[in-house]
């Protein structure tokens, strides 16, 4: 039987196991929306296409599945670009379908025509313009395959209106044939053995894990490997959750995992940055030596031999020259490392590590992450700690960008992969709320919290109605410092306190705003109100916007000034 392009679209999505799409209609995609009611695929109608992209992203990060969004041509397509770039920087599997003017009009500056394939080329893993309905099924199959395999990423498919209307016999290709695409997943055994030798010689090893561990579902392997070689672990912002920050003893009491160094880099912990700066071996797994991690490149891990595991060869020796590169899937590589280490265990390992671990313990005790909650004024860090405590860590946390994001990273203890969804690479303000909605769609029964700033939350606040009308009970915790706080902090430290254009005193009444959207608004202005507000919010089965009026000029510390070595931290 012949099917129309718009029907083939849904047939393909069903074959790919797509359960939900985040979208917003327009002239170029009405054909698709016309068919939508006939298919068993959930559609979440957003209020801005950027929201659709971030929701698909949040859904993908929370589940590991491919997130899907659908928008119209022209402005619909351009509105997704920030969301696509966000996903690209953080290697999130997504397929973005954009409508396009009919093929005959392409290039004519037609109404709502934009060259979205050209615009999105540098921020997608790959993209397609489908020119004939004959190619549609193959392209969709390839798009999903590319999005989820190798180093994942967003793939955009541009769909001209006439292609959606044209008819053809539907056949879904059985397999994908891409001559130029063969990701190396299997780590080279020779390199693994070289790594093992380096580990044997090391006295002060550090494991530096990134988002790649989470993408590869290699958390357990990471923990086992760290245990085998008795090495402390630090992670990037993207890697938080890949290694448990807290350990629970049989009585249920929680304490900081002694092997856990905390996050490293610009706002990393003292002990993580000191450990990396003094390590004789750095084992990077699924991390990419971003400048927010390394600080001054020449001063990064200056005493260490570097082993680097990554599925993307371009990540290796891009910023920092690596001694032992291992190209491969993180899980595969870690499994092999575990095998060789188990076969040939390190002798007297505990003894060998005792001095190093003692040094780390001292660093931790000298400069722990710290703040003082005194008096009535709420400290933002206190709010994050209370959020953690009152849900016992059982939540999916998204963040906005700025101080709120860093405090979330520092004070919420992430113990499981896929529990922190945050825009690390692009640093997109406005990511947190739609990402939380996407995660809540995937896990309707879990607690999903967006830790937000008063500035960022206003960048996609329109999606609150999407949460309300779809009964998605996300919780937003605004740390309201009446500032674009992170920028203000830079102005304070490096620009003579010239707080130009960072004061947000003029703000909406967030409680009334929540009310206007049909969500619940709660406010805490004094420290003692923090706990009751959080408890109440957690007990409500609706979207809740909590506003915490916090200390206005609190800073995020430690801080490595841009261009400095990561051992040169400003402490509180």
């Amino acid at each position, binding site marked *: 039987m012949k099917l129309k392009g718009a029907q083939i679209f849904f047939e393909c999505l069903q074959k790919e196991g797509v359960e939900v799409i985040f979208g917003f209609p327009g002239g170029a995609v009405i054909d698709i929306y016309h068919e939508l009611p006939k298919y068993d695929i959930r559609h979440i109608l957003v209020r801005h296409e950027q929201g659709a992209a971030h929701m698909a992203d949040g859904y993908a990060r929370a589940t590991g599945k491919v997130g899907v969004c659908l928008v119209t041509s022209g402005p619909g397509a351009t509105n997704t670009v920030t969301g696509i770039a966000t996903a690209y920087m953080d290697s999130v599997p997504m397929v973005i379908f954009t409508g396009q003017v009919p093929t005959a009009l392409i290039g004519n500056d037609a109404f709502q025509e934009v060259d979205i394939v050209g615009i999105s*080329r540098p921020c997608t*893993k790959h993209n397609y313009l489908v020119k004939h309905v004959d190619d549609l099924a193959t392209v969709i199959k390839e798009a999903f395959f590319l999005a989820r395999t190798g180093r994942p990423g967003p793939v955009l498919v541009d769909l001209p209106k006439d292609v959606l209307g044209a008819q053809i016999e539907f056949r879904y290709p059985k397999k994908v044939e*891409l001559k130029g695409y063969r990701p190396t997943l299997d780590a080279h055994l020779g390199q693994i053995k070289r790594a093992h030798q380096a580990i044997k010689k090391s006295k002060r090893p550090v494991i530096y894990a990134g988002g790649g561990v989470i993408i590869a579902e290699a958390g357990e392997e990471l923990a086992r490997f760290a245990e085998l070689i008795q090495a402390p672990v630090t992670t990037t912002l993207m890697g938080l959750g890949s290694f448990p920050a807290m350990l629970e003893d049989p009585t249920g009491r929680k304490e900081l995992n002694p092997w856990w160094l905390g996050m490293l880099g610009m706002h990393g912990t003292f002990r993580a940055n000191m450990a990396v700066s003094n390590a004789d071996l750095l084992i990077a797994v699924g991390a990419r030596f971003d400048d927010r991690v390394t600080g001054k490149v020449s001063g990064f891990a200056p005493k260490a031999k570097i082993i680097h595991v990554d599925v993307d*060869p*371009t990540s290796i020796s*891009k*910023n920092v020259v690596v001694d032992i590169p291992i190209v491969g899937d993180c899980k595969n590589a870690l499994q092999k490392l575990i095998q060789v280490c188990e076969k040939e265990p390190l002798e007297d390992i505990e003894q060998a590590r005792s001095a190093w671990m003692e040094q780390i313990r001292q660093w931790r005790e000298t400069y722990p992450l710290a703040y003082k909650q005194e008096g009535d004024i709420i400290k933002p860090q206190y709010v994050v700690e209370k959020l953690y405590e009152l849900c016992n860590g059982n939540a999916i946390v998204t963040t906005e960008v700025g101080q709120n994001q860093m405090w979330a990273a520092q004070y919420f203890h992430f113990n499981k992969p896929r529990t922190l969804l945050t825009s690390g690479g692009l640093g997109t303000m406005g990511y947190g709320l739609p990402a939380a909605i996407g995660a809540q769609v995937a896990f309707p029964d879990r607690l999903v919290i967006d830790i937000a700033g008063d500035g960022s939350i206003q960048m996609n606040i329109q999606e609150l109605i999407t949460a309300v009308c779809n009964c998605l009970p996300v919780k937003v915790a605004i740390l309201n410092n009446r500032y674009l706080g992170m920028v203000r902090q830079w102005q304070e430290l490096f620009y003579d306190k010239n707080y130009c254009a960072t004061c947000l005193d003029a703000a909406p009444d967030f409680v009334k705003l929540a009310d206007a959207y049909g969500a619940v608004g709660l406010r805490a202005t004094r420290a003692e109100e923090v706990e009751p507000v959080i408890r109440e919010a957690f007990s409500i089965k609706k979207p809740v916007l909590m506003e915490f009026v916090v200390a206005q000029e609190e800073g995020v510390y430690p801080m490595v000034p841009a261009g400095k070595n990561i051992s040169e931290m400003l402490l509180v």
Partner: protein
Amino acid sequence: MNMHSNGQKHTIGVVVENRPGVLSRVAGLFSGRGFNIECLTVAETIDPGQSRITLVTSGDQQVLEQIVKQLNKLINVIKVIDFREMEFVNREMALIKVRADQQTRAEILRIVDIFRAKVVDVSPHFYTIEVTGDDGKIAAILELLGQLGITEVARTGKVAMARAKKH
């Protein structure tokens, strides 16, 4: 990494799928990442489904390494030939329009002869010369003809191929 370092020149061959937009992916990679392109040629191979790009770039070893990896990462790139690792032959063709009058004609023809070039168009005041060779040869003929008055030059850009194995 210093993307703007003007290290040595390097020739890279890129076999790509012959599809619309592929060239802009390659060119976009260079501009987006601040890599240099000194010249670039592209044409179909004997397999009509594939095209071959030859490009000349510059940079230090680390930059070159990154360029090769980034090219490989493009989905439509089937193969990258890094000529640093092998012996290769390379050729370029140039069309050179040179002023030709009573006094210079003989000299021009002598140069054409020495370089095994060809005069492909003649008019009362100009000769157009076709020459093929490597960088050095083209530079040399341009230098010599330049003294006689070149008015226009069009070059194809370099194409390159690895030498066949001796045994």
